[in-house]
Each structure stands twice: as C-alpha cells, then as structure tokens.
C-alpha cells in the first residue's frame, strides 16, 4: 500500500551502454539497475527559505549533471542511472526522522543526502549511523563537530563552527586596529535564534582575546523589523565596527535602515543574507565593503563555471557561502563511489582519507571535517571575496574602512 513512492527516474540514456557493458563477461554483474539516491529536506515550513537557497538547488544541479553524464560511474567504468526519491520534511523534526527511516528501511536507498540545518542534521545523525550511511552535513555550523565525528564515525561536517568564524573576524579586526584603520571598539548585536546565539557566544571570548572592546552587546528577537533604536545606540557608542549576527529578513532590514539613518561604521559586518546574490545585485556599488560569513575565491575558474551552471539549471545564482560547499560535497561523494563502488563503508573511508578535485579546488577532510573554508567574506567588485583566513590561497585583501553609503 505504501510502496508506490513518487519517484523521479532520472535517465535511461546510459541504460543501453550499461547493458552492453553488463553483457561482457566478468563485468558489472553485481551492479543494480539503478542507484537510489534519497533525501528529505524542508520544502515547506520555517526552514524552506534556507533549504531553497543552499541545499535543494545544488542537489538538483548534481542530479542533472549525473543525468547528462549517464549516471554514477562505478570503479569498472560502468555508468548506472540514478533514481531520485525525494521527501518534504515540512520543517518538522519528527517528520525528517521518519522520512530518513523510510528512505533507509523502506526505499532501501543506496545513499541518502542530508537535510538542511544544524538541528535536522543532528536529528538524523543517529539514523545515518545505525544504517551505515555516510552523512555529508553541509548546512550545519557547529563547534561540536569533533565530538560528533567520534560519536558517528561516518558523519562529515563541512561548514566549520561558530568559533572558526568569530576567531577569523577577531583576527582581521585586531590587525586593522594595529594598522590604525579602526578603533578597538565593537558594537555587536545578535538575533535570538540558534544561529545568532551560537555565534555571539563564540564571539565574546574571540573578541576579548584579540584585545577588542565590546561596547555594545544586544540580542533582538526573531522577526524584528525596526532597528532604528539599535542603530542609533550603535552610532552613539563610538565603535568603528558594527557586527550583527543576523538572519534574513533582519539582515536586509538592517542594511536598509543603516542607509536611511546614515549609519556609517568603518566595518559593517552582517549575518546570513549578505551572501545571497540578489543582495549584491540590488545594492550595487553600495554593497562594496560589507562583510559577512563565507565568501569565494574570485579567481577560481571552476567555481565560476559552477555558478553559471547553477544559474542555467535553477534559474538563480548560488549563494556565496554554503552552496558551493554543498556542491563540492556531492562531487566528493560521486568521486568516492567511482573509486570504491557502492559499499557504504568503503565510501565513508574514502571520503575520510581521500583527496578530491572539486569546484573548491583540491579538497580533503581533516578528522572528517572540511577546514579549508572562507570564514570572512567582503563584497569587492561585485562579488563576495573571501578575505579571512588571510593566509589561505586565493585570499583577497580586506578593504577597510568601508566607504560611507
């Protein structure tokens, strides 16, 4: 009764080729006809916005790439078409857990792609572990990744933790203070949400260690639209640096009201949303100098090509933080399968120890975590360039102070 699942069969293009190969003696006889790839992600509900920006378009892009290639390549060169099984977790933790149970237990998916968000990735982590699926958690910022890797050895964490981002920002600011560009005072606000709280909790010690003086530290509730009072207070605090660990739509409201109130800090750092392509497109020249989490290497050609293909397939450019990493994680999965086949244990081991050529360049994991990341990005010449860590290959120089609106 519950077996007629909605399935989007991707291609039979390679079917004929695969059959021809299968007919040859000694080749590909134990391969399945199709490789089932499943995922449950928030297509509706509170998490839909984030999932529709960072996760779903990249899954679609990867699947369409696979379709064009004729499927996933096996170690013997056989290409097997992919069958997609897709569920909507409706932004409910119980639903995402059950959907993954369904994917693993009922649909017997060969591989399962992770959901969007820190909480949901953690909710399904014990299941991925129990069934032995590698979990390539991208849209999860957590300082506890090393603990999680010990607990769930097949889990992989790609986006770093709160401290990584705030330490990088603190270092950058401290250097600017030393250079005499800005004063050491920082005004800081954060949204009372998982993201804002994690980052501000990490930022306090980071800033203190870097010798910065936090003169304002406020939290605002989710859904705040009027930031006039906060901005006035920040202006009055005399701080050259304004840091907001904000979330959309707060980030957009802050940007707009900073212009209206002619609030011109020398460093303007805002949270999630600054890396969305429409942000730069809408602000144009005015975006120049604004800082945030993430970024890309503007000189990386494969990243450029990836951005164009993302636009072709999805009708929108990817965001400049998590998207490219989501796609890179999928490329790693594809390559690992090509090297060792469908054995999930072997694939996990390969992901853990192997080195891969992805849109990020040469990529490998340390202790199951991607550590080679852009922690601070700045809008420069119409793109969000990665500026910290400054010693990373391809890093752009931070351009400060930010010019007034």
């Amino acid at each position, binding site marked *: 009764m*519950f077996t007629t699942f909605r399935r989007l069969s991707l291609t039979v293009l390679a079917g004929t080729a695969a059959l021809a190969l299968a007919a040859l003696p000694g080749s590909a006889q134990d391969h399945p006809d199709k490789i089932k790839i499943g995922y449950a992600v928030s297509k509706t509900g509170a998490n839909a916005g984030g999932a529709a920006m960072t996760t779903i378009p990249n899954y679609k892009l990867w699947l369409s790439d696979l379709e064009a290639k004729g499927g996933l390549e096996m170690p013997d060169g056989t290409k097997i078409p992919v069958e997609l099984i897709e569920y909507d977790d409706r932004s409910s933790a119980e639903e995402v857990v*059950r959907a993954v149970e369904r994917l693993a237990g009922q649909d017997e998916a060969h591989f399962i792609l992770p959901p969007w968000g820190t*909480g949901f990735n953690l909710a399904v982590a014990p299941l991925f572990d129990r069934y032995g699926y590698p979990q390539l958690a991208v849209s999860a910022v957590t300082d506890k990744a090393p603990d999680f890797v010990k607990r769930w050895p097949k889990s992989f964490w790609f986006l770093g933790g709160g401290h990584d981002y705030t330490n990088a920002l603190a270092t950058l600011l401290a250097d600017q203070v030393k250079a005499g560009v800005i004063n050491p005072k920082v005004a800081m606000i954060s949204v009372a949400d*998982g993201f804002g709280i994690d980052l501000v*909790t990490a930022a306090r010690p980071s800033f203190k260690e870097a010798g910065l003086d936090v003169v304002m530290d406020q939290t605002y509730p989710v859904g705040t639209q009027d930031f006039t009072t906060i901005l006035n207070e920040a202006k009055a605090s005399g701080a050259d640096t304004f840091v907001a660990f904000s979330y959309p739509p707060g980030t957009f409201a802050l940007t707009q009201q900073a212009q209206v109130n002619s609030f011109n800090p020398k460093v303007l750092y805002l949270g999630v949303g600054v890396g969305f392509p429409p942000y730069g497109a809408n602000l144009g020249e005015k975006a120049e100098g604004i800082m945030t989490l993430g970024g890309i290497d503007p000189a990386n050609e494969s990243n450029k090509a990836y951005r164009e293909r993302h636009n072709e397939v999805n009708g929108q450019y990817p965001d400049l933080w998590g998207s490219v990493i989501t796609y890179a994680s999928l490329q790693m999965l594809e390559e690992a399968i090509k090297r060792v086949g469908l054995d999930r244990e072997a694939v996990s081991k390969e992901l853990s120890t192997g080195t891969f050529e992805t849109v990020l360049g040469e990529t490998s994991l340390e202790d199951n975590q991607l550590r080679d990341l852009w922690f601070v990005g700045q809008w420069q010449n119409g793109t969000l360039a990665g500026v910290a860590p400054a010693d990373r290959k391809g890093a752009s120089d931070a351009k400060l102070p930010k010019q007034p609106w």
Partner: protein
Amino acid sequence: MITAFSFAALAAVFAALAAAPFFLGTYGIGFLLGLVGYVTLASAWALFSGPTRYVSLATVAFFGIGAYTVAVLYETLPSWLVLVVAALIGLFVALLVGLSTLRLAGVYFVIFTFGLAELIRQLVTWYEVNVTGTLGRYLFVDYGPEVVYWKLLALCAVTLAIGYFIKRSRWGLALKMIGDDEVVAEHCGLPTARVKLALFAASSVIITLVGAIQAPRWTYIEPTIVFNPTISFLTLIMALLGGAGRLWGPVVGAVPLFLLFEWLSANFPDHYSIILGLLFIAIVFVLPNGVLGFFEEHWNRLRARGSAGRTELSQDREAG
C-alpha cells in the same frame, strides 16, 4: 459495556503491539511510534476537552515542557526520575494555568491556550539566550526507538484506562453536565472549577510525558523544534475526527489520519499541505460530530424509523 471478552481482546491487541518491534524494521517501529504518540496525545486532549468542550491549543506547550525537561536533566538523573520530574513540572504549570484561566469560556480559552504555547516558547528562548547562552541542547541516549515506543505504548494504555474509569465514575457524570450546561451544573452544587482543574491537570501531565518520552528521537532540542504549533492542531483535528466526547473517539480519529499523513507525505510530498487543508474542511463540514458521532446518528435514525418519538430525543441530544 466492556465485557471480559473485550478486555481480553484489548489486552491481546496491546500485547501484539508491544511485540511488534521484534518483527518490524526501524521504519515500522518509527511509524508505530508516531502513531501511538498521536493516539496518546489525542486521547489525553479529549480527556479534558471532550466532555468539557473547552478547545485547548496548549497541547504543544506541555509537550515542549516535557521535551525540554528531558534535555536539561537527562545527564544528571536516571531516566525514570526525569519522567517524574517532567510530570511534576507539567502538573505545576497545568495547575497554575488552570487556576487562572478555567473560568474563561469559549473562544477566550482557545486564544489563551494558543498564546500559552507561544509564551512558554518565548520564556524558554529568553532563558537560553540570557542565562545559558546557547539555544540548542544535545540529547544523546544509548537506546533505540523501540524503547521510546514501548514507553509510549504503556502511557497510551494508561491514558485509555484513565479515560475509561473517569467515564464510569461520578467524575464522568459531573463532566458531562459541565459540558452540557455549566451554569446548571454550578447550580446543582457541582464544584465545576475543581473538576475542570483536576481533568485539565491529568490531561496536561499525560501530554507532558508524551513530549518527555519522544524527545530522545531528535538528538537536538530547540524551542522551534519542540514548540511546533502543528502538534497542537494535529492533535485537535484527530480528536475531533473521531469524536472527542467518546473514549475510543480519539483513537478512531488518530489512526486513520496518521495513516493518511504518512501516505500523503510518502506519495504527494509536494501537495501535502493543500490536500490536508481540504481534508480538514471536509471533516468539519461532513463529520461535525466525529466519525463515531456520525455512525451513532445514523444508527439512531435507522432505529427511529420504528418509533418516531425517540428520534427527536436522540437528535436533541446530538444537537445539545
């Protein structure tokens, strides 16, 4: 009247359900777990709201309290004690809320209970932001979903038993009267406030326990995750579909609806919400008295063809 035979049949059903994890895969267990969870929630909700007709949207407030208590205490206390503490906190909040609000009637009560869930969510958020400095809590347990399932199943049996004994007792009679006409009940000398309070507390404690038992399913606890208002609405619609005034009503409502949700999410993940909305409208229009009420009404009509006099009586009762 439940005879010895029906008791035996019931015991057999529960025994079969308890043995199910040995024969099912994780998906099957997860499915049954969700099902029993909602049956318990709907039955607990109907315990109070069925007879009194006070529509409560506070389900998720208590559910979330239970889940949070476990997230805070699971490392420091043995698991049975955590459940006891959760139940006590649920009881305390229910008494506090009950004392201050059960004199509200009708739509005011609905609005208040809806607000309560949001209030508690904001309080927890405020506390986590300002005192602990972290919003998410990790909840690692070393047992699998089958243990969660067995605990829920036991709670479900207890809930149904409580419902059964209340119906048989003088309390049940008192509640029926309050539901039919509170003013009359008061004038007959019923301590209406106390009866309602006791029932509200019992129902809330059970709901708190459901949250506490289910929390380990998610590994990560956050206010937005455990105070999800959908839980309140689903519980309500399940109880209403079956018929909130009857002992088996919530079960009759929860089982088919849960099956339907599962079927819809598996087969129509993109149209789930639309189909669900249409269904809710259909339920309210076609089955305003619930499935059991619907059947009872038709049964009465059939019988009434024999004696015209009884029709009016039974229809009066339905309308009242």
